[in-house]
């Protein structure tokens, strides 16, 4: 049954013992008082009306005051407040204090009600103040009885409600929020016993006192022959009343005792059930069993014990689980380690073989490096020789270039001279041509002058021959000049080509020189590198030998390691078994297992 369902209409249930207990007490006390005080009819009517009215008023007041003391509980019952931890703890505190509060209110209500009744009788029924005093005394006698009964019933209900509210809450929280009322069982029992015996005795004594006090007057009022019978009747009446009242007291005492016992037995029964649950291994949800006094001490300690035990078992179980996991992991690691060790051994075998191979290779490299060194030396020599040759070639080309330049200069000068000669020859030609024309004219003139001019003509003819000779010669000179021009042009072209070729030769020689110097550099570098390689190879060779030895040692070590790993795996296996047993053992406390 869920807490919400249980809480439905629990206010009435909780308040019922108070109303019923007090109503019962009033129902007993009222008639009895009426009969003892020998009220007349009118006074009796007023008394009854006042009793009922005041009782109703007080019950109402008591209920309202009581309910005001348990606001949180009321909220939870009505659903106004959420059923969270805080509200539940606060309600628990209220419930624990509730019976004690109600005891105070109830006692106050009885005394107040009796006083009010007395005043009402004096005012309304012209009763004497003695009656008011008696009514107060009767209230003071019945009040504690009713209150004890109410208290016991209320406590039982409050405990039940507390047990429900505390379900699922941490015991230490419950104990802190709602400590039990520290009444000692013995003190309470003694107090109850005293109350339950003393008050009936006082009441009976009062009855007897009142009855016997009235007897002389009653006997005096009857004739003497009837006095014996009247006395008998009186005695019988008194006896009847005493027996009735005694029986009533007994019943009341029995009910109160039962209720008182229930306040101890109830918690003890529940405690026994809880202990049984623990014995069965259910450690989950330890319950705080509500009780008071020494019982409370037991139940609270038990709840705390249960809680601690649950925590402990949980820790053990966790530890077991961890051990299991760790052992599992260890097992796997061990297996892996075994595999790794095997692989390592294989790899080491391989490495060892490779190392030997490496050593062989190193020896071969050393031999090859020697050859390369020799080759590099020869290359260097050849390159240096080539460089010298290239330098000589370069010098020759330079000289050739210089010569070419001189030739070009000479050819240029020659061309200019030839041009000058050409111009001179042109001039000579012009002069010769002119001379020729003049000579012709002279010849013609001479001819026209007849014999006189014959000599003149001859001179003219001679001049013409000379001029023609000159023209022929200049024609030859022109031819020669043309030849020289052709030759110089060809020479110029040749020197031009030569200069281009020498330029190219220079460039080639430069390239060859550069290439050879590069070759020489490379050869030098190569021989240096080879020397380094040789040195490194020698170092490597010794290193490799050492490595091979080391490898053999490691191999041996690895074999031993492999055996160790085997043993470790066996140990792990055993550990795994142990861990499993531990988990089974702790797992018996099923309630402690985490869901």
């Amino acid at each position: 049954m869920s807490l919400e369902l249980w809480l439905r209409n629990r206010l009435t249930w909780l308040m019922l013992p108070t109303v019923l207990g007090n109503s019962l007490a009033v129902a007993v006390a009222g008639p009895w008082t009426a009969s003892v005080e020998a009220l007349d009819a009118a006074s009796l009517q007023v008394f009854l009306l006042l009793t009922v009215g005041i009782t109703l008023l007080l019950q109402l007041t008591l209920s309202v005051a009581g309910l005001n003391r348990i606001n949180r509980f009321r909220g939870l019952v009505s659903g106004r407040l959420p059923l969270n931890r805080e509200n539940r703890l606060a309600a628990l505190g209220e419930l624990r204090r509730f019976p004690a509060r109600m005891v105070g209110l109830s006692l106050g209500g009885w005394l107040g009600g009796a006083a009010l009744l007395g005043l009402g009788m004096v005012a309304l029924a012209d009763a004497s103040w003695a009656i008011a005093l008696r009514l107060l005394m009767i209230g003071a006698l019945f009040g504690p009885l009713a209150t004890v009964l109410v208290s016991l019933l209320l406590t039982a209900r409050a405990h039940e409600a507390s047990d429900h509210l505390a379900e699922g809450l941490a015991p230490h929280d419950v104990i802190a929020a709602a400590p039990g009322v520290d009444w000692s069982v013995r003190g309470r029992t003694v107090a109850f016993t005293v109350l339950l015996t003393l008050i009936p005795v006082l009441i009976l004594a009062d009855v007897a006192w009142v009855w016997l006090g009235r007897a002389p007057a009653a006997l005096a009022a009857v004739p003497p022959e009837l006095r014996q019978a009247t006395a008998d009747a009186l005695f019988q009446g008194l006896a009847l009343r005493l027996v009735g009242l005694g029986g009533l007291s007994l019943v009341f005492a029995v009910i109160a005792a039962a209720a008182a016992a229930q306040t101890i037995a109830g918690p003890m029964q529940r405690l026994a059930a809880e202990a049984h649950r623990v014995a069965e291994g259910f450690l989950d949800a330890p319950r705080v069993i509500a009780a008071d006094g020494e019982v409370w001490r037991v139940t609270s300690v038990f709840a705390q014990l249960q809680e601690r035990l649950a925590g402990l078992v949980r820790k053990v179980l966790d530890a077991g689980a961890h051990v299991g996991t760790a052992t599992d992991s260890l097992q796997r690691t061990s297996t892996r380690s075994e595999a790794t060790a095997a692989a390592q051994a294989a790899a080491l075998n391989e490495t060892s073989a490779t190392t030997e191979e490496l050593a062989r290779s190193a020896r071969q490299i050393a031999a090859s490096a020697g050859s390369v060194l020799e080759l590099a030396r020869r290359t260097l020599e050849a390159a240096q020789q080539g460089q010298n040759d290239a330098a000589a070639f370069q010098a020759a080309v330079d000289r050739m270039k210089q010569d070419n330049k001189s030739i070009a200069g000479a050819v240029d000068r020659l061309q200019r001279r030839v041009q000058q000669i050409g111009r001179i020859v042109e001039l000579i030609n012009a002069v010769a041509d002119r001379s020729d024309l003049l000579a012709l004219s002279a010849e013609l003139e001479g001819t026209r002058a007849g014999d006189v001019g014959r000599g003149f003509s001859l001179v003219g003819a001679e001049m013409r021959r000379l001029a023609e000779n000159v023209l022929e010669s200049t024609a030859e000179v022109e031819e020669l000049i043309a030849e020289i021009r052709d030759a110089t042009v060809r020479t110029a072209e040749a020197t031009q080509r030569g200069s281009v070729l020498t330029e190219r030769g220079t460039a080639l020689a430069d390239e060859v020189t550069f290439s050879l110097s590069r070759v020489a550099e490379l050869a030098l570098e190569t021989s240096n590198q080879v020397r380094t390689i040789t040195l490194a190879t020698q170092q490597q060779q010794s290193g490799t030998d050492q490595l091979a030895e080391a490898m053999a040692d490691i191999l041996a070590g690895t074999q031993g390691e492999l055996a160790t790993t085997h043993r470790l795996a066996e140990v792990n296996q055993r550990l795994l078994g142990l861990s499993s047993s531990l988990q089974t053992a702790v797992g018996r406390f099923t309630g402690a297992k985490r869901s």
Partner: protein
Amino acid sequence: MADVHGHLVFACGSSLYAVPADTASEVVNVPTLTRVPGAPAHLLGVFAHRGEVLPVVDLTRLTGHPIDETFKRAVLVRTPQGSVALTATRVLGVTTLEGSFERLGDVGVHQHLRGPARAAAGEVAVIDTQTFIEFLSTAG
């Protein structure tokens, strides 16, 4: 007939020609010519010489021989009928000629050429300068 005064012998193209020395006034280098509109083809043009306009006659064109324009000089011929310059590829000089001086033809310019006369350089056609210039003037 005896050659009293001598002749000026010159070549024009492949042929040798001669003019009487007394009609050949001078030999000149031919300058740039000015062409004359409506003139016959053998009249190459004119040039001014000593304040006179001289027409230049190409004998190769006139005689119908292969045209030769390599001439540099011209022989100036002056007659009462007029003056012309005859193109000459070479002027050989004044010489006396031997041989006959008969007309070399009956048509065109050939009726004004005489021969065959002989000079040291070879056979020479002698130009009858007076009739030659008259012929040129009428031929237009």
